[in-house]
């Protein structure tokens, strides 16, 4: 058990003038994301793109599924890691327009670990695998794009055709999709 202060122990007088940005140490969020990035173990269908190598908090993930409805497509996700990582999950948006039951036109992604089931023990790698899984097994039970979910449940062939149509670029229903074949 330690006894902290010997009496009369005077601390060094501090200077009270604000001096911003003079820290010697990276923040805890920075340390954690650095570790996550170094330990990224991407499946062969995934790739990352860092626009600024010094900024590990902002990057893109590119998924090119090699099986399932979405094979031959190329889908870009943006990741923004905040100062409260890993207490809070990174903000992830799908930048590619995609006909998918769990992704809407604004790029919102319905993946439990991105919101309600996020835990600090999870890593960037967990999210990558979660996103990849969404393309292998789109989940009509938790839809963001209700029409797509309905087609998937009632007519898998039509769903597959719609996915193809959207990936080639064109209208599905009333919505226009940009081409995203790799």
């Amino acid at each position, binding site marked *: 058990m330690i006894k902290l202060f010997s009496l009369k122990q005077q601390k060094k007088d501090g200077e009270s003038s604000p001096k911003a940005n003079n820290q010697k140490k990276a923040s805890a969020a920075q340390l954690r994301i650095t570790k996550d990035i170094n330990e990224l173990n991407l499946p062969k269908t995934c790739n990352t793109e860092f626009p600024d190598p010094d900024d590990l908090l902002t990057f893109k993930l590119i998924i090119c599924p090699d099986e399932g409805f979405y094979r031959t497509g190329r889908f870009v996700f943006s990741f923004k890691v905040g100062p409260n990582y890993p207490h809070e999950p990174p903000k992830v948006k799908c930048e590619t327009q995609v006909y998918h039951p769990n992704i809407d036109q*604004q790029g919102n992604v319905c993946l439990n670990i991105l919101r309600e089931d996020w835990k600090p023990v999870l890593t960037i790698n967990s999210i990558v695998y979660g996103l990849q899984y969404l393309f292998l097994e789109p989940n009509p039970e938790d839809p963001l794009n209700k029409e797509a979910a309905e087609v998937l449940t009632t007519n898998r062939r039509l769903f597959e055709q719609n996915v193809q149509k959207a990936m080639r670029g064109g209208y599905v229903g009333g919505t226009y999709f940009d081409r995203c074949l790799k």
Partner: protein
Amino acid sequence: MSENQEVSQNRWGHLRKVLERPGPFSHPEFEPSSDILDFIMSTCKVLVIGAGGLGCELIKDLALMGFKQLHVIDMDIIELSNLNRQFLFRHKDIGLSKAEVAAAFINKKVKGCQVTPHYCKIQDYDETFYKQFHIVVCGLDSIVARRWINGMLISLLNYEDNALDQTSIIPMIDGGTEGFKGHARVILPGISACIDCTLDLYPPQVTYPLCTIANTPRLPEHCIEYVKIIQWPKENPWGIAIDGDDPQHITWIYEKSLERALQFNITGVTYRLVQGVVKNIIPAVASTNAVIAAVCATEVFKLATSCCVPLNNYLVFNDVDGIYTYTFESEKKDNCLACSLIPQNLPVEDPSKMKLKDLIELFCESTSYQMKSPGLTTYINGKNKTLYISTIKSIEERTRENLTKSLIELGLQNGSEILVTDLTSPNTLTVRLKFVNNHIET
């Protein structure tokens, strides 16, 4: 003078009973003495972070316990809604700095007390400021701020040959409340569990599944979240991000949420609820703040005086249904990225000759490291810098040129710390460069 002494004897009589004689709960090394009271009153410097609900209680408690060298830091200004529990503030103070008003109030009311206010963010000060304190006590509602001060106090630790220099430890007492629940904990940086060791213990923000919000809303909160997450970015009425303090924004969200609630037959959307959900407000309860602050202030007193063994190390409190408290020892994590990275000194003969690839070679070939493909980052002038990461293609391509640069050319200095991660170890290694020929130091 003698009269003053007498007044002082009476005024601090209760403290003297604890400090001038031993008791069954005394710290094993406690030596009762009248000097201890002197230490509290004239030497011991305590920093209170936050002058809100907990902060007001803390400053008052500490001032009345005899601490005279108090500092308080808070970046916020006083709002009308604070006044029901932040009792150092009055209606006329609305719009003024919390730290400044709180300090002035205590200095006026508590004779001899000198509270120094700091109306700014904790991040505005560097280590020269934080070094001056004996103890830091936090009444914060932000985890980011907690983690920042936690990291700061850890960075002040001194290690000599891997042994922690105990005089460099500044204990941190962390209090927190959420409605009828609260916690208090004692952190001895480098010795006991830190904020990042136990990040899981802080409750996550309330979130709802996106698909529920989008398709099967049942609660008024679901409707508000829908407008906030989906409708706002889509329609973007003012072309900017939501500002929770802008009544126009709140009104817009309120109206749209009402429409959506009507559509799904949901009742309970009110303007106040919209404000609460958008700003993530958890209602504050004055009595919980008072209890938690009292526990924290007692711990400050125990640490400053050694009169009692401190809390070991985490107390939870809940008065939703009767009163429940529980104390447990949260464990320090061996691989905590905040408190387990003890810098290892690395002597460098000639930093203008040593290239980054030589350093990496050292990590791979030296028997004490034996790494496979280490990733190296550092922190220069308040900015993260990636020196080399081989495992990410886009980073490798753009940091490859660093390999042939010397440490000096990379901007590294004597004392610079390099973070090294490698798949051979779950831990991150911190290496502190020691330039052997010190005259090269820039």
